[in-house]
């Protein structure tokens, strides 16, 4: 081999022989597989273009394939015992074939697991890939044939494990969410307990919330000044909990404005929210005994896009000069644009959102802010109905429980190096 390389080098160096260089190199390239084989005494070229090790290492054993738990049926779980030569391996390769006895050429790799692993979840729920049938797709209820082999860092392979067959099935309960289910049941039980307590006449204390206490004052101010009230529901959708909470407060504000015959303007950014808003305000006016004062045009759709919506609402503020502005719902970058414009018009402003990143802007620019959960507490706070107060009290006790779990977790990790509590509260991704 050294002589062959020397011949090639001489052919390239000698001026008179340059024309022969291509021929020599061509011969050398044709001998490349043989040269590689000679330089790796234990290797030979395999049919599947990988270097097969001879002799093969010992294979992983006891391969079993079964349903993968907690999934939609498009996954199987392969388990095996590590190969005796596990320490020499880099990975285990998991291959799939059409049947256990199918020839090697039709098997294809579907995954790999690092050495020391004894299981692999093979999951693929895409029936097609790039418009073509996906051969790796795991069809629910159909047998999946797998086999495993190990590969070392230098390309040596183990023998194949025996092939095993399993079937993926859809599961009806996600065991990883058991902790969430337990927490929801406990919380639901606490809600029921406190509703019952409140209905039996037990006094439930709720701390004062200045933002909600100022609602009547703000409506009264608009009435005295003879200017409308602006109610902004944010840029969320009708399905967001914060938006629904915004509608609940709108209902109470609209009832008051109906009593005082003060116009209320509700520009919205979503047609579904428009229909809901019109229905809520109309119902509130009817309940207040003033259905004739209701004007459907006051609840209007302006734009579904964020900044056109801001431009429209700011325009309303500048032209109508509302004495009071409410911002209740989900807000993004528009929070400060709206609140500062309202501040510039001299309006008294009450805001509420569950968007943590926008709360500082509202705190800085509006007179009263409902921070996070206070937005959800509004209906209970304003109505004082026992059924409304019960969940609020349960919420307080849930917070206490979370604080205790956090303290217990800190102590367990710091003093005993025990992370059991972390596992208890962990949720699946």
């Amino acid at each position, binding site marked *: 081999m050294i002589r062959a390389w020397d011949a090639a080098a001489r052919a390239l160096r000698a001026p008179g022989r340059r024309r022969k260089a291509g021929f020599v190199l061509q011969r050398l390239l044709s001998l490349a597989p043989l040269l590689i084989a000679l330089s790796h005494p234990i290797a030979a070229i395999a049919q599947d273009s990988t270097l097969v090790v001879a002799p093969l290492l010992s294979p992983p054993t006891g391969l079993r394939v079964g349903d993968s738990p907690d999934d*939609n049926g498009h996954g199987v779980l392969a388990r095996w015992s590590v190969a005796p030569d596990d320490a020499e391996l880099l990975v285990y390769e998991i291959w799939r074939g059409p049947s256990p006895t199918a020839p090697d050429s039709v098997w294809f790799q579907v995954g790999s697991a690092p050495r020391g692993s004894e299981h692999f979840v093979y999951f693929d729920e895409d029936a097609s890939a790039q418009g073509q049938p996906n051969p790796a797709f795991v069809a629910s209820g159909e047998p999946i044939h797998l086999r495993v082999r190990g590969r070392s860092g230098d390309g040596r392979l183990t023998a194949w494990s025996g092939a095993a067959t399993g079937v993926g099935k*859809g*599961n009806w309960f996600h065991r990883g969410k058991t902790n969430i289910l337990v927490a929801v049941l406990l919380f639901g039980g606490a809600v029921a307990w406190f509703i019952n307590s409140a209905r039996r006449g037990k006094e439930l204390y709720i701390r004062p919330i200045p933002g909600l206490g100022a609602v009547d004052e703000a409506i009264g101010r608009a009435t005295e000044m003879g200017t409308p009230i602006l109610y902004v529901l944010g840029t969320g959708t009708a399905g967001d909990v914060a938006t629904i909470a915004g509608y609940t407060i709108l209902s109470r504000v609209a009832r008051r404005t109906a009593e005082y015959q003060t116009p209320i303007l509700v520009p919205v950014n979503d*047609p579904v929210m428009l229909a809901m808003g019109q229905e809520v305000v109309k119902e509130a006016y009817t309940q207040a005994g003033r259905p004739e004062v209701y004007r459907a045009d006051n609840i209007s759709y302006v734009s579904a896009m964020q900044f056109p919506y801001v431009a429209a609402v700011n325009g309303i503020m500048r032209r109508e000069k509302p004495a009071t502005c409410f911002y209740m719902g989900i807000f993004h970058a528009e929070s400060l644009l709206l*609140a500062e414009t309202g501040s510039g018009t001299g309006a008294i402003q009450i805001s509420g959102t569950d968007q943590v990143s926008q709360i500082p802007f509202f705190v800085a620019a509006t007179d009263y802010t409902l921070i996070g959960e206070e937005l959800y507490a509004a209906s209970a706070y304003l109505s004082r109905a026992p059924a*409304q107060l019960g969940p609020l009290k349960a*919420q307080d006790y849930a*917070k206490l429980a979370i604080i205790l779990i956090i303290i217990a977790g800190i102590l367990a990790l710091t003093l005993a190096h025990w992370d059991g509590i972390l596992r208890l509260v962990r949720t699946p991704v």
Partner: protein
Amino acid sequence: MKKQIPILIVFVTGLIMVLQFFVPHAASEFLFTYANDFVIVIGILALPLGIFSLMRGTVIKARKDPRERFYAIVTIVGFLVMAIANFRRDSGPDSLAQNLFSYVMIPCQATIFSMLAFYIASAAYRAFRVRTWLATVLLVTAFIVMLRIVPLPEPFSSWNSSLVQWILAVPNMASKRAIIIGVGLGAISYSMKIILGIERGYMGGDK
């Protein structure tokens, strides 16, 4: 009956969606996807309602209020031009609709967004006025945090950077997480009230 039937629908669908969260089966996934698709369909079906509301309000303004007339006409013309431009089948990068979007709509939106810089300055001025000791704490903290982007000489730069990291990672993060936990519990509690029919304000009232 006007209230009972919607409350029953909310209870049944709410309960199904809660159970769906715990069920990984393909049927459960299909239900979730189907329900979400239905929300999109409802949104599209409601769009004519929104367009009608917008046009009706704008036309009324154009006819009755001279102060609003110019802006109302701009809105109507803008709506019609954009709608007609989008009726054309060519939707490539050089189409009229795309050009209107790229060279009219986006600059207008960027202009509105850029106003945020001025509003932040005016809001910060009000927030940082030293009226109470809490406002003083806020002012001092904000000053320290903002100082991080000023090229201070060493070792002040390193000290300030460490202090800012601590402020953001400990007191700031603790308060944010407290709010997030409160919001999470509040949302669960509120959802339960809606599903159980205790909360009916979103339907216009309690009665």
